[in-house]
């Protein structure tokens, strides 16, 4: 078994209104050093394979087809032994 740890985040060129709101909230808590927050999604996908290469191909496909909307989002993942 392997686990794909997937991060889906907005592309850099896309404004993130949630992130902007959280930036302001952190600033108002006194964290003046906070300049920007970007909100994303984290997913763990458990995969029944031990072949890292196949897992990588399959997870890439999953991200392209469903887990990310590549019009506005980008994704990255790492594979770990479960």
């Amino acid at each position, binding site marked *: 078994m392997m686990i794909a740890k997937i991060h889906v985040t907005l592309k850099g060129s*896309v*404004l993130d*209104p*949630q992130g902007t*709101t959280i930036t302001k909230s952190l600033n108002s808590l006194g964290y003046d050093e906070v300049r920007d927050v970007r909100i994303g999604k984290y997913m763990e996908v458990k995969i029944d394979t031990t072949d890292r290469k196949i897992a990588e191909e399959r997870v890439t496909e999953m991200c392209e087809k*469903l*887990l990310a*909307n590549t*019009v*506005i989002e980008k994704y990255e993942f790492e594979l770990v032994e479960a």
Partner: protein
Amino acid sequence: MRFAVLVFPGSNCDIDAVKAVEDVLGEPVDSVWHTETDLSQYDCVIVPGGFSYGDYLRSGAVASLSPVMGAVKEHAAAGKLVIGICNGFQILTETGLLPGVLRHNDHLQFRCEISELRVENTDTAFTNDYEKGQVIRIPIAHGEGNYFADQATIDQLKANNQIVFTYHGTNPNGSIENIAGICNEQGNVLGMMPHPERAVHELLGSADGKAMFTSIFRTWGEKHGA
């Protein structure tokens, strides 16, 4: 003329759409469950609003993979009419039948109110009973109606006259170019955030949505000599 209104788990504007077709046109209309794979008997498919699959992952993302959406793609490829309203618009963009994506409203609030729309394109099957530039009052009810696409796509939409409705006056969600509704390049697939099916009688606050249904019926009639 035969209409299908798709129903997904979490759809909640499907009955409104059925009633609008019945009340405005009196034409046959069926509610069609998302597991259906054959839509060949229908002339127009309405993908209604709601929260299909609880908006899990992204609004419209899970519904776009339903069996019925394969049939909707075939229906659209055959040149027949498809309308996606609100969540239906989100489903059509996720399916790839329409370009772009609907993001969270820029102010992050859910907006439920009457909005003013400008009819930008009256050469479509859905809008030929309106006047070009006509301002109509149609309700909106969404948290994720902020239309976004890259500049190349926007340029293409403009060049092909695919922007069908824009918000007039106030833009309620931050959409690019004030876009409220677009169609595909062929003009037979329309997606819009506002709800014409909720504006078919003065008692509902507006009857401005009626002309969408009469446009569709007129187009079909002209094509089929009815």
